[in-house]
């Protein structure tokens, strides 16, 4: 992050400044993603088996079909019905999905900003003929005075 900030401030060339800005942005996204990490045994935020263990509808469908299979067998004494109900995903077993969502938006907005900044850089080059910051400042001041 600090390298990106230093690059933005102190580099002379405009494109190096843009590279510094991008480095800065990705480092901030790294910071947010590191907030979302849970301990070393947590899983990625996608439910396994297409979520079939957890969805209430599919659990209900399985319960109905199970009853249908066992329907003829309830003369066994002590036959227990399967406990029906979906499992609830354990919040400690999955990484936190909220910062991931915000960072997806941040990456895409960063790309849009980079594209726009590069277009403006091209216009500056076409107008003044140089991309170095100090030469640009001289030319702009000369234009203002003249």
């Amino acid at each position, binding site marked *: 992050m*600090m390298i990106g900030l230093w690059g933005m401030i102190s580099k002379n060339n405009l494109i190096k400044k843009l590279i510094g800005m991008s480095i800065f942005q990705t480092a901030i996204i790294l910071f947010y993603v590191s907030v*979302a990490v849970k301990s070393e045994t947590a899983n990625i935020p996608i439910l396994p088996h297409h*979520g079939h263990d957890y969805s209430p*509808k599919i659990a209900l469908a399985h319960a109905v079909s199970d009853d249908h299979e066992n329907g003829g067998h309830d003369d066994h004494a002590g036959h227990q019905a399967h406990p029906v109900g979906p499992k609830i995903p354990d*919040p400690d077993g999955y990484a936190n999905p909220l910062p991931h969502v915000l960072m997806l*938006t941040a990456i895409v907005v960063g790309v849009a900003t980079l594209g726009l900044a590069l277009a403006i850089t*091209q216009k500056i080059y076409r107008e003044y003929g140089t991309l170095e910051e100090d030469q640009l400042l001289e030319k702009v001041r000369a234009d203002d005075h003249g």
Partner: protein
Amino acid sequence: MKKLAGIVVFTVGLILLYGVSSLDDFPSWGTPDSPANKSPLSQYFIKNTIVDTEVPNMVTAVLADYRGYDTMFETVVIFVAGLGIFAVVRVFEHGGASRVVTADTKPDIIITNTCRLLIPLIQLFALYVLAHGHSSPGGGFQGGVIMGASFILVALAWDLDIALKRFSEKQAFICSGIGILIYAGFGLASVFLGEEFLNYGIIHKILPGVDSPEMARYYAMLGVEIGVMFTVTSIMFLIYGLLATRGKMTAGL
């Protein structure tokens, strides 16, 4: 000036490191007990994504359904960036030395034949990423970027003119507008049926073959991601075309 910048950056870096490491009120890295991980929103999302929407990928569900308003405006931001680049670059000076730098190379035979084999596979993969965003990492943005990159590959391997013959500038702009309209259309469909904007659960009354609010949200999320993909693809290709040729959209890279 540069030394001053260096000193400032170093000091800020030291302050940040001190703040993160040695204070006692920062939770240690990666515990399940930190305030971000125990917040009621995160717990709600992890527990209730599958119940409300039948979508296993929590990130896609939060992005397209719970925070769908954000995603809609993010798509608008991409569209406006494309428009902005168009407006910045497309101003032609009258006369003046406009030296268009062209690369005078004929399309090389190895590259064109390899790309002829690869580009359909890349586009198929982009559609797969879009469609499978519900149960694996992926979704609208990723698929859109990959599809846009395939068009850029056409422009790089052959000429930009050939790419423009397939997907001209006007078509690209219209396509990106259609993407946003699809997104807003899903939201407005919910409004017309009596619920709030972007509350997809009520759409199950008009979609054929969908019988419950949860599956309606599933399919509406897929439709919304398709809208996002249209916009992202066309804007990525447009930005490349405009940047590479300084707006003239003739033979460039």
